[in-house]
């Protein structure tokens, strides 16, 4: 069971997609149910992974490794550690909620939509579980195509421009990363004599500084576009605003995390020296992203683009925490990835619910909604506060840890970033006030139906998660602690080895720092 459970979870959505392909197009209700059931079972199975995950172990868990393209040293190699586990779970958690949110929002070409969403989920899960660089790249790119269709077919009026921009931005970065991956593969062969794409194996390389520099930036560009780090963020508002609600949720909730995850999984352990050198530049870009994202959010007329720009700010925090390079910073950064997925996902869902009622997303068209939509208003309040980072919600824990970590490494960065939190409160609360409070001036806003059961069912799990992480983050932090410690230790060890002029960590050093992968 433990051998194949991870493969099962990753590929179950794909199986669902294949099943749906055989259902007649007109049977929309049946298609929706099959899709929902598939992602629900996927989520339940992934919970098993959470409970079975051993927080003490430094090694990758639930590992599967099989030859795929033997002659090139490419293997089908999956596994999870404390860093990827939660991103993996976040993906499976958001799956059922997004499918549920499309019940009435997507009425055309339902079959194609569900197939795309399921394929997307498999690709995303694969990205987080892959331990073979080639396999990772295949999932990374394969994700593009379903997302391209989701935005391009079911999106808003400017969808075609948005979707092509999204694909071209992403692909530019990822193809340069491909060249770097190939280069890394041959460098490893030159050092060790074996051809392999295995990430744990490649992590043992201690590369010359110049090589590190080039490879780091080739990887970093691909990830920074995905995050998106200022000034590479311009594709994001377009894609978010045009995407259908479910697409936005996945885009913000999971897709952006592929970038931050990439920094943590590849850039840090593979190129630690280059990573260190990049700290000032990337930290400053992250801080610019935090303040710029927040200020631009403030000026938005469309709620959805407000939420989109706020993502730029939030992801700036994630990057800042990661580049603080200490236990608190990185743990906060991982936690904030999850938080952003939950809070921003919930925000997009609520915006989608408003849109279904009013067919507009302009803040000016709303006003005084809380009188007719009290339940929605309550949910919206909780989510908005969690996005700001009010104590007691998930956002607080994440941002607190990040600023703590940043404070330890550089006080200036921490102070600058903390001021971003204030602007965040301004734009979010101001928007909330204009939409929910005040007099109902527009007659169209009267007599709207409050949330139905299905919509409550979508939001309740998210709110539970918000408070759970807010009040009791220990189950999350404790499972990632060991992996983060060993990541930092192995980075230290590699920095030391670099000074001694070694080319790769020997077996004993490797096992000592615990990144080894003895099943």
């Amino acid at each position, binding site marked *: 069971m433990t051998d194949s459970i991870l493969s099962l979870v990753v590929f179950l959505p794909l199986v669902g997609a294949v099943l749906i392909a055989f259902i007649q197009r007109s049977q929309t209700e049946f298609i929706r149910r099959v899709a929902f059931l598939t992602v629900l079972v996927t989520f339940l199975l992934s919970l098993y992974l959470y409970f079975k995950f051993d927080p003490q172990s430094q090694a990758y868990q639930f590992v599967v490794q099989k030859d*795929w*393209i*033997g*002659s*090139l040293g490419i293997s089908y190699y999956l596994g999870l550690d404390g860093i990827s586990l939660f991103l993996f779970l976040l993906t499976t958690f958001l799956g059922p909620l997004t499918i549920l949110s499309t019940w009435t929002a997507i009425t055309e070409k339902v079959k*194609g939509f569900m197939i795309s969403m399921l394929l997307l989920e498999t690709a995303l899960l694969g990205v987080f579980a892959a331990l073979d660089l*080639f396999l990772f*790249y*295949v999932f990374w*790119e*394969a994700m*593009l*195509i379903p997302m*391209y*269709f989701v935005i*391009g*077919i079911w999106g808003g009026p400017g*969808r*075609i421009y948005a979707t*092509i921009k999204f*694909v*071209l931005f992403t*692909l*530019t970065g990822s*193809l*340069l990363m*491909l*060249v770097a991956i*190939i*280069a890394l*593969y*041959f460098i490893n062969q030159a050092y060790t004599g074996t051809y392999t794409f295995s990430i744990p194996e490649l992590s043992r390389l201690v590369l010359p500084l110049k090589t590190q520099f080039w490879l780091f930036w080739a990887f970093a560009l691909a990830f920074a576009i995905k995050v998106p780090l200022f000034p590479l963020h311009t594709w994001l508002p377009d894609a978010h605003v045009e995407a259908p609600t479910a697409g936005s949720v996945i885009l913000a909730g999971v897709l952006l995390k592929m970038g931050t995850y990439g920094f943590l999984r590849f850039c840090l352990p593979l190129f630690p020296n280059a990573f260190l050198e990049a700290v000032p530049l990337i930290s400053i870009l992250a801080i610019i992203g935090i303040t710029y994202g927040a200020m631009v959010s403030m000026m938005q007329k469309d709620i959805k683009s407000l939420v989109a720009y706020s993502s730029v700010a939030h992801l700036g925090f994630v990057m800042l925490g990661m580049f603080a390079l200490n236990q608190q910073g990185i743990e906060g950064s991982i936690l904030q990835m999850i938080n952003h997925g939950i809070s921003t996902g919930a925000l997009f869902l609520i915006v989608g619910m408003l849109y279904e009622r009013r067919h507009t997303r302009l803040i000016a068209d709303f006003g005084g909604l809380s009188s007719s939509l009290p339940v929605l208003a309550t949910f919206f309040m909780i989510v908005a506060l969690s996005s700001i980072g009010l104590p007691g919600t998930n956002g607080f824990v994440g941002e607190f840890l990040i600023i703590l970590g940043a404070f330890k490494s550089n006080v200036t960065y921490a102070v600058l970033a903390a001021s971003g939190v204030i602007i965040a409160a301004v734009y979010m609360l101001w928007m909330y006030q204009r939409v929910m409070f005040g007099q109902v001036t527009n007659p169209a806003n009267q007599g709207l139906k409050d949330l139905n059961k299905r919509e409550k069912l979508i939001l309740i799990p998210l709110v539970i998660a918000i408070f759970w992480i807010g009040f009791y983050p220990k189950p999350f932090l404790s499972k990632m602690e060991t992996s983060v410690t060993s990541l930092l230790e192995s980075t230290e060890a590699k920095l030391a080895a670099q000074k001694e002029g070694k080319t790769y960590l020997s077996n004993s050093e490797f096992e000592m720092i615990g990144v080894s992968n003895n099943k």
Partner: protein
Amino acid sequence: MNWLAPDINWLGLAPEILIVLVGLLVMLLDPFLSASRKQILAHLSWVGVLLTMLACLYLWDSNIDNWEGMSLADNLSLTLKLIFLSGTLLTIFISSFRSKSEIHGEYYALLLLATFGMMLMGSSTDLVVIFLGIEVMSVALYVLAGFNRPDPRSGEASMKYFLMGAFSTGFLLYGIALIYGATGQTNLVEVADYFYSSPTDLVLLAGIGLLLVGLGFKVASVPFHMWAPDVYEGAPTPITAFMSTAAKAGAFAPFVRIFLHSLAGLSASWSPLLAGMAVLSMIVGTLLALVQRQNIKRLLAYSSIVHVGYLLLGLLSGGAEGGASILFYLLAYTFMQVGAFAVVIYLGNRGEEDLSLAHFSGVAVRHPVAALAFSVFLLSLAGIPPTAGFVGKFYIFSAAVRTGHVGLAIVGVLTSVVSLYYYLGVIVYMYMRDPIELPARRPSVALVMGLALAAVGTVEMGLFPGNFLDLAQQSVARLLGS
């Protein structure tokens, strides 16, 4: 002077002999069949191609010297032949005629004879045999390009192809003559031996340069590509598919033999030229394909120039890796390119396949399977995983990075990004625009089979490329092994 009969090994030549016999049989039978029974010729042709493929497989690892070192049945030549034959097989399947009375026996016979020409090239180790193969292939193709007689553009394509082809043949022949003049040899091994002993012989260098120009014309690499778009547009669509895959692979065969093997050690003298051709092909082809909105065949024609650039990149990388990457890419390219043309035929109105992009509006609604298949082929051409095109590009770029051509590999990946833009453009029309009415018709069984075969090949080579990679590596191991 006594004339000695050359020592011919008939077994090694079995595939060539088989395909010629089938071609001749088709031509002979043609007059005896009534119009309603001409379909038999098509069946005879594909069965013949399949048998020839079996003959190639039978000869695997035999390494027979066909006649006096002028032609070899080694694994490289057998794999090349299998690639040509796959292209021919798919072309036969996707060839559809407006009515049964329009089926001409010559069509199939010429296809088979063109394939014979390619196969000669695939196994030749002598400049004279290479020339013979190129001419057999080209003459058959000149006629085939003009086969759509009611359409004046088909005639134009044929004429243009003939004139440009004859012109390039002149270069080729002159190059061979100069090489012979300098070395007194036409055998590639002996030419190479001479070259190693005096690498600065200007006559020889000029000969090699002209050879490069002649072959550059045949594979349609920039700056020798001008004929390709017009010819590809005017020729009947199945023939366009055939020319842009099998014929291109055929012309690549001597490239592999000459530049990867015989002259490999002297790459300093020819690699700058090839690098220029590769970079220009990738960049110019991409830029020109970007603006093709009027005709899907032209778009695919320009994009095929880009793919020549990638193949030349494999050539530059050299060695067993480079050779294997070329073979893998040629096969992958055959599947995806013929597949793409098969969809064009499927959606077009028998012979009127000059579809502009607007014609693809909303195809996904009316022909969901065709739209899906076309998307797979286009994404594969763009090199998106998990398709054959991705693995092919990955292999070519990795060979390039390994041999230090990182700059060229980066040009390759950047043009891939741009190329995705025009491939996605077609997908945008198919999935994201409202449908327009196209005259509907039932596709023939053969066309659907060809389409399915190409799709299976494209996906199979993308998901499980292991066996194909092994095959490609084994084919070059003996000749180029490290």
